[in-house]
């Protein structure tokens, strides 16, 4: 992994510069040379380096200390080593006072320089990891994690702040990949329940009886295989929040049970007689049109109104295209670290390509696309060629005609069947290809009675 670290050797003596650079390259680092302080500053401005070796005296022009000060203005976190053949206590003190991490007198022992570079890289690796983990923490579990400059999204942020501390049930509606769970987490984190559990349940991923036991828990012997008492998600959530994803896919019996919990705010474990109070806040989400399901008689109207006390409707990515550059940068920053790649940016033509794309799988699809591009990228900047795979998809811009007389539901069924067929029934892979999460795909499989 040394090839991801960049070192600049700055010395006016060509032999000194080239031989040290060659020696460091043997360790696998990417090493460049600069003949003067000015050249070094220009190079640092163009592409930052992780470690700078600066000769103290470089006539004519700016010397090592001045070069270091200029570089620090551009890159406060850079490691700078001042090297000199004419060591005095004064120059050493001055170099360290101005911010050099190390002061080396040439010629120095190979062991000294080798150990210094190794330790510096170890520290930088830890700093990089630490910075990433900190960002991950704040981004994933706080309201600010949702990145947007779209007006409709900002109205949602205001609503979240307003209702976060209330107990009212929230119904989040939006297409797959629009960030329903992120909004649910934001509601939890921004309110007074943040210190208590946030429990997520994907209602579509589980069979009816399993879901029942998952939500309400069960007593020992309640059914075959119930060898011990188990607490359900409502109980585990305590005074926190319970997130019921894909609520539109639950069975009529569970709709009834859930309605009862919402009305009475208490429940029983399966096979149990002890009444347990329900203190958690319910946040439900669905990618289905629940009003339509109510009209068709697929979803209980009374439950719909109980759930829909506060309604949050998330726009699709197509309706907030101005967020694409922000999201792309955010994903690059996060995913490049995870993938251990040195990708930092996206080219203008590539960004235009992403802005023009349809994104039926919304933000999740955009995230998967960036991840795939990073994994195969060779340079520091993602370019159009890195997104070639987008053009291979049938929606890549070529005009697509819906088969005559086929409803949207039928098209969805055919799409799911065909992808599952291609993946040999592998749900995880099929969900990735379709740009939906697994629970959504399970729901589709069940909805369309697709044999597996």
């Amino acid at each position: 992994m040394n090839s991801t670290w960049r070192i600049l050797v700055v010395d006016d003596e060509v032999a000194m510069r080239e031989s040290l650079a060659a020696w460091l390259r043997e360790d696998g680092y990417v090493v460049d040379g600069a003949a003067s302080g000015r050249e070094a500053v220009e190079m640092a401005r163009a592409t930052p380096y992780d470690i700078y070796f600066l000769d103290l005296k470089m006539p004519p022009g700016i010397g090592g200390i001045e070069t270091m000060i200029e570089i620090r203005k551009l890159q406060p976190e850079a490691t700078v080593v001042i090297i000199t053949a004419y060591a005095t206590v004064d120059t050493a003190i001055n170099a360290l006072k101005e911010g050099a991490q190390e002061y080396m007198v040439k010629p120095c022992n190979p062991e000294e320089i080798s150990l210094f570079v190794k330790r510096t890289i170890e520290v930088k690796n830890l700093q990089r990891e630490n910075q990433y983990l900190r960002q991950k923490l704040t981004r994933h579990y706080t309201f600010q994690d949702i990145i947007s400059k779209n007006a409709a999204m900002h109205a949602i942020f205001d609503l979240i702040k307003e209702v976060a501390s209330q107990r009212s049930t929230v119904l989040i509606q939006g297409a797959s990949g629009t960030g329903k769970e992120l909004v649910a987490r934001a509601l939890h984190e921004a309110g007074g329940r943040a210190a208590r559990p946030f429990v997520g349940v994907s209602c579509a991923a589980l069979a009816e009886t399993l879901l029942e036991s998952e939500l309400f828990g069960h007593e020992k012997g309640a059914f075959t295989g119930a060898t011990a008492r188990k607490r359900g998600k409502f109980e585990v959530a305590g005074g926190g929040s319970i997130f019921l994803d894909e609520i539109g896919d639950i069975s009529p019996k569970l709709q009834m049970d859930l309605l009862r919990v919402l009305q009475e705010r208490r429940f029983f474990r399966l096979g149990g007689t002890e009444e347990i109070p329900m203190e958690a806040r319910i946040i439900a989400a669905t990618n289905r049109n629940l009003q339509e399901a109510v009209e068709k008689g697929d979803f209980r109207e009374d439950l719909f109104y109980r759930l829909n006390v506060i309604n949050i409707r998330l726009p699709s990515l197509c309706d907030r295209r101005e967020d694409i550059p922000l999201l792309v940068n955010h994903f690059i920053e996060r995913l490049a670290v995870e993938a251990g790649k040195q990708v930092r940016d996206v080219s203008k033509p590539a960004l235009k390509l992403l802005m023009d794309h349809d994104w039926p799988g919304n933000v999740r699809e955009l995230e998967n696309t960036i991840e795939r591009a990073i994994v195969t990228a060779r340079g520091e900047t993602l370019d159009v060629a890195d997104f070639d795979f987008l053009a291979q998809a049938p929606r890549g811009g070529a005009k697509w005609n819906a088969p005559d007389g086929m409803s949207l539901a039928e098209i969805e069924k055919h799409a799911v069947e065909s992808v599952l067929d291609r993946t040999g029934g592998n749900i995880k892979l099929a969900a990735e290809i379709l740009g939906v999460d697994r629970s959504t795909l399970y729901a589709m499989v069940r909805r369309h009675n697709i044999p597996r």
Partner: protein
Amino acid sequence: MLIGVLPVEGAAAADIDALEAFVARHYACATRRLPPLAMPPDAYDEHRSQHDATTLLKAALAVRTADLDRLLVVTDRDIFIPMLTFIFGQAQVDGPAALLSLARLRQEFYGMPARHELMLERARKEIVHELGHTFGLVHCADKQCAMALSINVTNIDIKRDALCGACARNLADRLEAMAG
């Protein structure tokens, strides 16, 4: 593949013979012995009583012919680069030539009784190391691999005169790419 072996004046012919035979065996390739190279006068640094590796390597590259895939230069003198007090050898990653000094591989250098066979054993390890760089290999974290960085003879003595599995596979890929 053809590897040229270029002794610098002063190196014992018998040692060079032994090391050349090792190179031919290790890489299963042809070798060509070049006439000894006179040490360039400007390579000597009076102040340090050592020879400048970069100047020596430049002089060696001037006598390299185009049919040589790699050039191994062997000197008996102590060598340095300006930033470091000494080096055992020098090679450019993916470059055409590698330089090895036998001076600090000798026990006598450290005030101990001579052990000629030990010196040759260390030289074999460092040849695999320096030529490895010319084939694009970088330092390896496996301390027993010939590509591990050595900053003293103890480090060299821990190493084997062969590559670890990962470096060997890497070298095989690079040699295959060179051949193809």
